[in-house]
């Protein structure tokens, strides 16, 4: 099989080119499964014509909206990845504003350290703080100065550079400076071409930062550690050990909160998995293709079916089938009474999920296992295929096959203005959400939100219990949301709030011209 991951290249291709990812779509989940043509598109089958190369031929149709609201960018994602490694330093080659989300990543970092039993402290991300003159005369010297400062101040094991819109436009050569500084400082210096305008979806930023780690940090001469399993994660609590220790495995979390050495040893692991293929597939596939570290060929570990299959796939990988079967049986037995109790309490409850792509597929499984009705969901983008491309990893198909269709399945990049129409189509007693911007408007419409900060929360059998209990608590908050609904307004026009179709402007852009005068009233 031809290799698809190209670590010899400076950077990774954007998701929209590599995987055919889209950010705007509306329909039934089953239709999207069909249209995605996962199997044909899989890069390991060399992709369908055009999908992996020019994007021609089989690009998924998108609904192009003339109106946008803002959310994250790839630069920001790269900062929340490469900027959250314990003993490395990220230098953002940018004006100061590209670092403005770092206080939130700092909260995540401090929380993450605490969750993993390490003393909390602040992140150390630097910016070259570029000014007007730098845009005219270039800023390479400032980046070099910053690298020397980072080295002196923090004694890092590696330094990352990140590109911003402005430094990309003025043509800063991150790669040459990185290799020059690598020679001078004697530590890896990894450039990331993660300028925000580059990709239409922020998740390309995950791939860019992983690509940088794979090229510059991962041990190129691995000595196998047969009891080590990589879990591509964010800042989550270590729930994976509870599930993997019975199989004799040690968990190596990457990339947030990890140390340089923990990243380096990923090439030595027995296998790689993740809580979310949207996040982890590129890294896992690269390790598989380049270092022969197999990725787990299974659905994500959500709900009974997903967790069972995931554990069995890992067990097969490491020859612990018997232990796995015993563990699975014992776990089912253990959690069953509690889950029955939760199902009883959650009878008739309707949920709505808004998160990153494959994570949503997992969460909906969990909710449906708990007996919660889910008739609608928004995923912030959709990858019709993952880099892994294994049939067992087709998360949306797994969801539809195991749990049935989702009537209103929407792909949208955090567009709060669509929320009133989206929520009017379904019953929703609560929403589950990651990323900012949407939950506050749901709140104003009377719907409480469960903001999942700890992304490992719903994982595994205990994840079902954790989510079920959390939903009950969140439902109680509806009192507050009803107060809001009685007294506050959304910042949208009555005309817009009366629209039933959240994508009307994509289907009928002429509507803007027709009623231009009325909008002015």
């Amino acid at each position, binding site marked *: 099989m031809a290799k698809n991951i190209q670590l010899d290249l400076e950077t990774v291709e954007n998701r929209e080119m590599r995987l055919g990812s889209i950010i705007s779509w509306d329909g039934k989940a089953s239709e999207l499964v069909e249209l995605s043509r996962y199997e044909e598109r899989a890069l390991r089958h060399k992709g369908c014509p055009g999908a992996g190369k020019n994007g021609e031929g089989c690009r998924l149709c998108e609904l192009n909206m003339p109106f946008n609201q803002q959310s994250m960018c790839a630069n920001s994602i790269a900062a929340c990845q490469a900027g959250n490694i314990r003993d490395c330093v990220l230098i953002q080659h940018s004006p100061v504003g590209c670092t403005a989300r770092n206080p939130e990543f700092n909260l995540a970092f401090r929380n993450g350290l605490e969750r993993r039993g390490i003393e909390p402290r602040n992140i150390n991300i630097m910016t070259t703080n570029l000014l007007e003159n*730098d845009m005219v005369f270039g800023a390479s010297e400032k980046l070099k100065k910053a690298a020397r400062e980072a080295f002196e101040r923090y004694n890092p094991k590696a330094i990352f550079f990140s590109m911003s819109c402005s430094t990309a436009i003025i043509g800063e050569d991150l790669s040459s400076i990185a290799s020059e500084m690598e020679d001078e400082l004697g530590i890896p210096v990894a450039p990331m071409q993660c300028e925000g305008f580059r990709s239409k979806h922020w998740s390309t930023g995950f791939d860019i930062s992983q690509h940088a780690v794979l090229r510059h940090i991962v041990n190129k001469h691995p000595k196998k550690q047969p009891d080590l399993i990589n879990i591509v994660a964010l800042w989550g609590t270590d729930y994976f050990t509870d599930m993997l220790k019975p199989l004799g495995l040690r968990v190596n979390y990457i990339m947030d909160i990890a140390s340089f050495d923990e990243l380096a040893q990923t090439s030595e692991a027995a296998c790689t998995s993740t809580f979310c293929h949207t996040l982890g597939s590129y890294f896992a596939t690269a390790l598989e293709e380049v270092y022969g570290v197999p990725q787990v060929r299974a659905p994500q570990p959500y709900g009974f079916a997903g967790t069972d299959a995931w554990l069995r796939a890992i067990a097969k990988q490491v020859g612990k089938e018997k232990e796995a079967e015993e563990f699975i049986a014992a776990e089912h037995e253990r959690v069953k009474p509690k889950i029955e109790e939760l199902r009883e309490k959650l009878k008739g409850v309707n949920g709505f999920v808004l998160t990153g792509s494959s994570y949503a597929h997992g969460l909906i499984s969990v909710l449906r296992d708990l007996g919660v009705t889910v008739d609608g969901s928004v995923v912030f983008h959709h990858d019709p295929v993952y880099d892994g491309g294994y049939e067992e990893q087709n998360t949306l198909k797994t969801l539809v096959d195991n749990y049935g269709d989702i009537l209103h399945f929407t792909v949208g990049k955090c567009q709060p203005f669509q929320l009133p129409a989206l929520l009017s189509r379904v019953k929703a007693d609560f929403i589950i959400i990651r990323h*900012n911007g949407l939950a506050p408007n749901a709140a104003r419409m009377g719907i409480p939100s469960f903001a999942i900060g700890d992304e490992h929360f719903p994982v595994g059998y205990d994840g079902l219990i954790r989510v079920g209990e959390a939903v009950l608590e969140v439902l109680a908050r509806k009192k507050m949301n009803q107060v809001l609904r009685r007294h506050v307004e959304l910042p949208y026009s009555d005309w817009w709030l009366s629209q039933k179709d959240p994508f009307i402007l994509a289907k009928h852009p002429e509507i803007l011209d027709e009623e231009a005068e009325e909008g002015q009233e």
Partner: protein
Amino acid sequence: MAKKPHTTITHPHYACSIGAAYTVSAIPGAIPIINCGPGCVDQQYFTMSFCNGFQGSVGAGGGDIPGTNSGENEIVFGGAKKLDGVIKSALKIMKGELFVVLSGCSPQLVGDDVASVIKPYREQGYPIVHAEVPGFKGNNLWGHEEVVLAIIDQFVGETKGVHRRRKLINLWMGAPYFNTFWRGDIIEIKRILEAAGFEVNVFFGSESAGVDEWKSIPKAAFNLVLSPWLNLRVAKHLEEKYDQPYLHIPVLPVGEEATTAFLRQVVEFAGIDNTKAEKFIEKESKRYYYFFDHFADFFAEYWFGFPSQFAIVGDAAYNIALSKFLADQIGLIPVGQIISDNTPVKYREEVAALYDELSEGVYGNVEFIEDGYLIEHKISEYDFGSSTPLILGSSWEQDVAKEKNAVLVEVGTIATEEVVLNRTYIGYTGALQFIEKVYSAAVSG
């Protein structure tokens, strides 16, 4: 003062100029439209609001802000077309009375002609203005002034023969959202000025009448700049544009003595009858000392110790205001004051002079530093004596506060250990809340 050397920045205490979207967002009925990359204003939300006392937003803030999300296509072929689509739909989708387009780094660098995109809308009578605020030109405070000036020039516009109202004041204080306590501060200062008989245009927040208030800028008798340097540019512009005088009071009043002096100064400048003001001062003073008197018991006989020496990191406005109050009214010993807001070089001498005498015989030790690494290093070197140090600062100072075994009270950007709604540390009421905050922190744990 010499030109300041460039520094890299770790742990910035401000956002970039696109953060001024929150200056727009703070005006009831105004909608910012962001013309730049896909993550710019989302990033600023965290420094300006979420990680700054979890202030949240109303109207068009947070995720609701329209933007072009400019991609590769807009960089290569220009972003005018996409911007036009966003403006056209924003005018229809958003409920707004004033639309402010803020252009960031990308359109500026690729040379988009934003003015000609907006022109037809302006000609059709849409209330839409444009501010060029690329992040490489300045921080959110610079952006704040740019946005205010853009609204004045392109929306408030020219006026002839306008009738000045003797008791109407235009109040210019800190930048909304950037100042963690802006909502409470405006309420307190407006309350005080109104009690003396003034009417006050506050422009931002719960007490503002929204865009109508902006239209009435030329009617005010004068502009009151209540900040060390921010908004001076606005006041000078208004002086030229409308021949409108301004009164600059650089230090926010904290506590009875400072607030009373502040009110008397404004009344005297305005030349209005002071009867109302004096009556109000009497009432407020009585209330203030009723509580201050209660506080005396704790302050005089708490056995278990509390901080005697303090350092402060923050924007110029809060830095001098709180330093003065603690040094002059409470008797805490100032160890060092670090101004982290990138005060423009031309104002630095004037601002530094405010620290010359914080109280009789008490002198400041002020420095302007923007890089959090250097700030933390500086604090680490301060000698706080043997008692528990008090550090007034931001969440970025958590680690150094821990190292110094200090009490940390967050008084500005970034604040992730505070949930701030209607709170103020200035005026009569604010000073008492500030005392409560500092000493609750001191006695807890």
